[in-house]
Every structure is written in structure tokens, then in C-alpha cells.
């Protein structure tokens, strides 16, 4: 790795015991790195699990508690939101499958504790989209205002419909029918994901199977163009893998599934960068197997150079002079791999023009 000094937050997530020797000035930096990358509340829960929370100085503890207070309130609202969506789904006779952050919270994964996010993501079969949309309409969600171009962009090319917002609660829901855009080369068969979904005990909620949850998390992060939450998402993967890998036969199942879903490359990246950055325990042979999916050594070196910068905590103390460039290259790449050039080129021109004329925010 080219970045000379490993950020404090990365060290503390690898080995929480290091907090025992920090000065207040180092605590101040640790809190800022964690806050800016959206893992301050999560970090508190990790310290609690490791019986270290009593060792945190008061000055830092109050900020951790504050982030947890906020996250707990979000979790309460989420429970209510999930109930409302369940009600809207009753007549559809369709399993309600949650994705990403909502799934981690609903399934009570470690990665769900203290994770803050703004919208709920669900996965439904593509041929049921219209029904789902009208059921949500009926229960108070309305399509957000998007112009004709964006409508077409979503409906024809993407893996989700334009986000819907609840008229009273202002909460948003993203209805997906796949985990990658329809026009992407690597778009998997989403019926495989739905078939494998698991019911959360005593709830009318479903989530992707553990191996699919990891793969989706990987697919999402390594197709991402913006890395504001990159480090948090990498930490999601680290926590999911640590939680699930205790199960017998886990690694074979995971690798096999990546092949079935055509997501070998994202899984390679996920295992490569969780082990490289967060020292996630992954068996040597698994890493070697994955490498076969990504045989070009030079390309591997380039991606290491880019991702080891882009996936650092989103804080100035975790950046070098190339971080901005790396994130920019990955932004372009994310569009490149999500869309064919015939669609990408006009799309980027349009976005660029809107930004230049300040009709759209940075």
C-alpha cells in the first residue's frame, strides 16, 4: 500500500485494544475519522462488544454516545417504516425482501448496529413492479419528481424505479428489481436472488441469503462511483464476513454463488480489500482461488493503487495527494462498467452540462 501511515480508525477497527494507549489528541482524531466516515456509532458498539467502552475518556465517549443516540432513533423509525411497508404489501402476496442497510438491521446483523442511512431498499420481481408501485401509491408513497430524461434513464436502463417518497413521513423507498442496471454486462439473474431469500424469524420480512447479502454488498461497493461511505461499506463487508464465516462450508458456498450470479470480480475486490485494509480473516486458499478471476497482474496493481486510496475513511487525515484523483478515476469507471458507451457518453455530457450551469448540485 502506498499510503504511508495507516489511519487510526483503521487500526482501531483491526484491533480495538489500541485505544488503551491513545492520547486525547489521538482520540479527537479517531472520533473525527469515525464520524466523517459514518461509523462512529458502530465503533461504539464494537468497543462495547470488546468490553472496552469503559476505557474511553469522557471527552470522546460523549460523542460516541451522541452518535449512538441518533442511530438508535433512526433504528426505531426504521422499525416503524418496515411495518408500514409490510402493511402496504399485504395484498400483494409477495415476499418483502429488504436490501443493504435495512436488511442488516432487520436481520440483526452486526453491521446493522449503529448504521445510519436515509432510504429503505427492497427487491421485487421485475414483472411485479407496476403492482408494487401502485400498492405503495395507495399507502401514501409517491414517485419523486423526475424529468422525462430521468424517467427513461430509470425505467429503461436501471435496476430500480425512481425513488418514492411518503407524503407524510417524507421517508424514501427504493424499489429494485435487480442489483445492477439492466444494461450492465454483469447484471445477474435476479430470480436467483429472490429464490434464495430467507425469512427473518417471526417477522414478515425477508432478506437475501447470507452469501447473497455479502455478494450484493460487494457488487454495490465496487460499482459505486462516490466514496463518501466507501469506508463504512468496506467495514459492512468486514463485519458480514466475520459474522457468517463461522458457518461450516461457508467459503465454498460463497465462491460458488459468486459464479452463479456472475459477480466474481466484485467478490474478488471485496475479499482483496477487506483483507488488505481491515485484515478481515479470509483463508489463503480462498484468496488464491479468487485471484484466478482477476488474472491480469498489472490491472490488479492499478486497482490496488486506486481502491487503497478511495476506500480510506472520508477524512482529510486519511488522504494523500492522489486520493482525489483515485476517486475521480473510480467515478468514471463506475459509469463505464454500469453502462455501454452509447448510453454513457450522452449521459455524462448531460450531467456535465447541468453541473456547469449549476442546475444540479455537486
Amino acid at each position, binding site marked *: 500500500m502506498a499510503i504511508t501511515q495507516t489511519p487510526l480508525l483503521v487500526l482501531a477497527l483491526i484491533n480495538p485494544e489500541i485505544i488503551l494507549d491513545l*492520547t*486525547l*489528541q*489521538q*482520540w*479527537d482524531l479517531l472520533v*473525527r475519522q469515525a*464520524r*466523517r466516515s459514518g461509523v462512529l456509532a458502530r465503533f461504539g458498539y464494537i468497543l462495547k462488544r470488546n468490553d472496552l467502552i469503559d476505557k474511553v*475518556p469522557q*471527552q*470522546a465517549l*460523549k*460523542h460516541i*454516545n*451522541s*452518535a449512538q*443516540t*441518533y442511530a*438508535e*432513533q433512526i433504528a*426505531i423509525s426504521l422499525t416503524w417504516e418496515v411495518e408500514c411497508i409490510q402493511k402496504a404489501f399485504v395484498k400483494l402476496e409477495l415476499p418483502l425482501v429488504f436490501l443493504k442497510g435495512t436488511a442488516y438491521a432487520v436481520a440483526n446483523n452486526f453491521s446493522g448496529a449503529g448504521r445510519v442511512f436515509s432510504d429503505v431498499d427492497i427487491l421485487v420481481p421485475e414483472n411485479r413492479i407496476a403492482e408494487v408501485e401502485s400498492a405503495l401509491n395507495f399507502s401514501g408513497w409517491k414517485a419523486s419528481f423526475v424529468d422525462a430524461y430521468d424517467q427513461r434513464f430509470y425505467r429503461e436502463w436501471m435496476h430500480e424505479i425512481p425513488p418514492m417518497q411518503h407524503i407524510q413521513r417524507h421517508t424514501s423507498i427504493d424499489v429494485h428489481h435487480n442489483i445492477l442496471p439492466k444494461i450492465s454486462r454483469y447484471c445477474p439473474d435476479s430470480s436467483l436472488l429472490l429464490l434464495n431469500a430467507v425469512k427473518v424469524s417471526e417477522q414478515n420480512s425477508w432478506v437475501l441469503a447470507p452469501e447473497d447479502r455479502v455478494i450484493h454488498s460487494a457488487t454495490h461497493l465496487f460499482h459505486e462511483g462516490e466514496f463518501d461511505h466507501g469506508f463504512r461499506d468496506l467495514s459492512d463487508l468486514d463485519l458480514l464476513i466475520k459474522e457468517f464465516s463461522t458457518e461450516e462450508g461457508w467459503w465454498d458456498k460463497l465462491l460458488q454463488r459468486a459464479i452463479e450470479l456472475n459477480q466474481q470480480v466484485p467478490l474478488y475486490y471485496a475479499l482483496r480489500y477487506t483483507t488488505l485494509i481491515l485484515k478481515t480473516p479470509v483463508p489463503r486458499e480462498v484468496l488464491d482461488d479468487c485471484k484466478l478471476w482477476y488474472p491480469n497482474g498489472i490491472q490488479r496493481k492499478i486497482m490496488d493503487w486506486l481502491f487503497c486510496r478511495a476506500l480510506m475513511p472520508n*477524512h*482529510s487525515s486519511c488522504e494523500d495527494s492522489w486520493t482525489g484523483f483515485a476517486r475521480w478515476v473510480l467515478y468514471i469507471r463506475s459509469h463505464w462498467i454500469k453502462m455501454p458507451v452509447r448510453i454513457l457518453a450522452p449521459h455524462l455530457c448531460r450531467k456535465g452540462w447541468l453541473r456547469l450551469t449549476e442546475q444540479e448540485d455537486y
Partner: protein
Amino acid sequence: MKSKGILLQIGPFVVRLDTSIKTVVESVYSLYSDYIFYEDVPSLFIDFYIRIDRPNLYRGYLRSQVQCYIDGNTPFKPLPYEQAFPFFEWGLNWVIASHVHYYLLVHAAVVEKNGDVLILCGKPGAGKSTLCAALASRGWRLFSDEMAVIDLKTNELIPCVRPISLKNQAIDIISEFSPSSIFGLSYKDTAKGTLSHMKPKKEWIEKADIRAVSKWVVFPQYKPDSATTLNSVAKGETVIELAKNSFNYNFLGAQGFNSLCALVDRSDCYRFEYSDLGEAIDTFDKLSS
């Protein structure tokens, strides 16, 4: 761009301001001159980092704008360059309201006399800052003109003394009412009209550790030519109104509710209408005697 860090104790918070803009440095050194300034040492924990600077070549120099960075983050749109110092004050309000969920925060002015706290809560324009500045220049101790900071365990109010921000006519009214008060620069055409900051007195800053409990919750309303009237408000209504004016009540759940109820329970609650500042002060002096 070379910038110099200014480390300040503001109420219960340690704040670091970085800026290369001369007027911001000058305003801070004059309005905050009686505050505790720190050296950057390993034993110091800084709560909030704020940087005020030109955003980039285009916005900074051609359009002459200024940006407020909260530890590198930019939650705001840039403002005209002249408003650099008020931007620091607004940035600090924002960062406290968004990150301090270990206290209950209510949008209100707070003053104290003889150990009893008066909370003035009202919509912008209701005259709460004016009333607060007037009371503070007539023997009441300022806690804050902007937010009531409440300890969730003891329900005490915590002083968070800052320059009092006065808008439009209130600037002239207060400088006439209290000629000895010191003002910073005037900023015209801000989102809130003309703005100026009144320098807090040294004794308020020195007593920043002395907390107190509330005795009155008042909803003031300035109304031209009205008589001075003070009418009781039901406690339930008061709790609801304070909750509506809170920055973080929604996040505190039962804790916030209990704290607010305890605070209101021990307070007399009023609606207050006034037009004459002298009469208004007399009313509150009478309450406290």
C-alpha cells in the same frame, strides 16, 4: 493557503477555527477576547473543527464567495465573501445542533438572575434576542441567545455564552438602550437582514461553569404599540411548544420527554407581549424579586 488555528473554549465545547481571512480572525479576537484560548497540545480534545475560507479559485475570487467547512465537510452553499464571520457563527450553531445529542437543545434565549433561569422561546422575529440582550445589559447573566443547553440527567441549564446576534432594528434599539455595549461589524443583506454581534461581558464567560435550573419559561412576542402583558400558559402546552422548538428532541426519545417535563414542571410558564423594552425588563425584574 496558510491558515492559523484558533482554539477556543466556547461554553462546554472546545472549538478549533481555521481561517486565512483577516476579518474573521479580527472579529474573533475582538468579540471573543475574554474567552479561554488554548495551545494545540496532545492533552487537548477538540470537539469541533470549523474552517472558513474561499471555496476555490472560481467561486472564491471571481464570484467572491466564502465556504464553511465542518471538519472538511460542506453542508452549506457558499455565501458572499463579506459574510465570512457570521458564517463561522452559523456553522458553529449547525455543528452543535447536529452533533450534540448528549444534551437537550432548544432554540431559545436563556438568562439567569439569583440562580433562577428564564428561558425565552419564540419564532425568529418574535423579539427574543432583543429581549435577551436588553435583560443581559440590565443585570441578568447571559447563558445563550440562541440555544438552551440542558443536562439530561440533572435538567440544569448549561451556559453556552456566545456573541449575541442582533438583526435589523434590534441593533439600533439595543445600542440606544445600552450605550456601553460593544458591537462587532455590521453585515448587510444576510439571509436574516442586517446583522451585528454584541460582545458578551467578561463576567458571563468567567461564570461559564456555573449552571442553574429554570424558573420561568416565557414565549415572548414583540408587537408594535401593544401593552405589556404576561399571561399564564398551561404546562402541557409549554412542553409541546418547547419540543417543537428543540433541535434534537426527536432523537432523544423518552429521555428528552422526561427532561423537558421536569424542566417545565418546576417553571412558571407565560406568554408575553410587549412593545416597550423598559416595561418588559421591569416585568421580569419583578418576577425575580
